[in-house]
């Protein structure tokens, strides 16, 4: 069971952004897409979600071609957590999470009692039940990110794809969000997230794919792959390595 890309090329009609991407996101596993900031990673995520047609290569969801699924079939399999934004209307947090149930109801259907229950369960699962009636526009960036994760979980997907889940968060909120990501994989979901921070990948991901300018530099088990030499190649700067007494490793950017 996996979301798999083989020799994938992606981009927009007028411009190719990346190619020769091969990856597999398996159930119960965290995969980090690591690379410098730029447009490449978000575009790859949109392609993996079926929002952008691939330009070449194969893309399958649990051995079936992704392009053969309907929009709502895809939404029931793949949960998407975009980068948090404020939004136009001051929907309550509960309403935002309830939107995750869209693919489970008919076009004209009102949300069912079951849909409401699922939304409440997901709020509770992320520890933000007390935010339920607050306007989504008036909560903090970290809270919004948790709300969007709850919304993706309300889709009851098998895989969750997160775009820079900690990009705009302060230190404490980064910790909270990353802890949730680990928990999701422990519960059997396949989790893919993008990040520019190698320490996050090292600490929270099972596997890592390094990507730069639309090309796959390397991919493999996080602990094996994340070495100073590789990171130097990826970011083009010197890397300092910090070790603690228990053998844990962290990287610091140098010059």
């Amino acid at each position, binding site marked *: 069971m996996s979301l798999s890309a083989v020799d994938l090329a992606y981009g927009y009609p007028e411009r190719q952004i990346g190619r020769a991407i091969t990856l597999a996101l398996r159930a119960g596993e965290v995969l980090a897409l690591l690379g410098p900031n730029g447009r490449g990673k978000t575009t790859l995520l949109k392609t993996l979600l079926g929002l952008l047609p691939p330009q070449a290569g194969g893309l399958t969801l649990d051995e079936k071609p992704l392009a053969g699924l309907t*929009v709502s079939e895809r939404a029931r399999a793949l949960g998407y957590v975009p980068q948090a934004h404020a939004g136009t209307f*001051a929907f309550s947090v509960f*309403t935002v999470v309830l939107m*995750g149930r869209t693919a489970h109801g008919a076009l*004209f259907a*009102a949300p069912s009692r079951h849909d409401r229950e699922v939304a409440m369960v997901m709020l509770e699962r992320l520890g933000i039940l007390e935010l339920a009636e607050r306007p989504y526009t008036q909560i903090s960036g970290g809270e919004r990110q948790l709300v969007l994760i709850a919304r993706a979980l309300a889709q009851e997907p098998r895989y969750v794809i997160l775009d820079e889940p900690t990009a705009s968060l302060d230190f404490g909120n980064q910790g909270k969000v990353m802890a949730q990501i680990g928990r999701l994989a422990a519960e059997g979901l396949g989790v893919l997230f993008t990040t520019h921070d190698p320490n996050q990948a090292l600490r929270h991901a099972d596997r890592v794919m390094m990507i730069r300018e639309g090309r796959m530099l390397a991919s493999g088990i996080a602990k094996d792959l994340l070495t100073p030499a590789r990171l130097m190649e990826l970011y083009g700067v010197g890397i300092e390595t910090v070790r603690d007494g228990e053998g844990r490793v962290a990287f610091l950017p140098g010059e």
Partner: protein
Amino acid sequence: MSPSSARGNLFAVGLLALGVVLAFALGRFPVGPGDLLRILWAGVSGQPSGLPPQLETVIWNIRGPRVIAAMLCGAALAVAGTAFQGLFRNPLVSPDILGASSGAALGAVVGIYFSLGIVGIQLGAFIGGLIAVGAVCVVGSTIRRGDPVLALVLTGVVIGSLLGAGIGLVKYWADPYNQLPAMTFWLLGSLAGAAKPDLLPLLGPVALGSVVLIALRWRMNVMSLPEEEARALGLNTGPLRLTIVAAATLVTSASVAAAGIIGWVGLVVPHLARFLVGPDFGKLVPTSAILGGGYLLIIDTLARTIGPVETPLGILTAVIGTPFFIWLLASARGGWS
């Protein structure tokens, strides 16, 4: 339903009821609520009402159709405005953003210019609105760059101003003594001409469009999100957007055909409704419909009664709408609650 939204709906229904009572009680032939009920009951039961037949004529043939037309147009414009504000993710949008009103107005003034008679003018308005929005959709969808919603809005603005030029040209050609006043009256909006035979052709498209929009209200929450998020949540955004645009255009064109251009209702009422029941479209759309019906009915009653001659609706909606909107802009903090 939470207690606060129940209170909001109660207010909307109360306003509508007040509007109905006032609409019959004010005017050259005042009809009190008691007499109104008696005549309505007589109509249902077939028994004589015991009231002057003159009064019955006022209710069944003059005031009644006008009241129904006002409620229908008001409700439809409000629902269309609510849908468009969600679809275009912008609370300053009104149902004519895609050129429905300008197209309908051009159709109407062309009808007046060729002296087509009332049916021809109404048909011209209705078809003009549909063609204008159809053109905007076709042109907008050929723009492949960037956000499709933005492409649609910008195309609407551009084609709307072209239609405005067209209206100006027809007015310039028109006979200044005969046709020009008729055109001006049409462009300012009025329900004075709403009579029984008008109701049926209006009812069809307005009811159809409104039912579609009300049925889709739970999906409008998701449609107000960025395009790719809405699709990731499982909505086929392209066809759904087209359906909402078509339904809103149907009701806008039909109401322009019946009553000329009535601005502001589709812009102001959704905000009032949002104050009452909050931004969730599932609750907002029905409340907008009720509130819009009451709002236009009260405005139309004012239009009939404040001066020796009827005041055009467009004037009143603008005079009421402008200060309201300035207040709204000044007091809005962050998101639109």
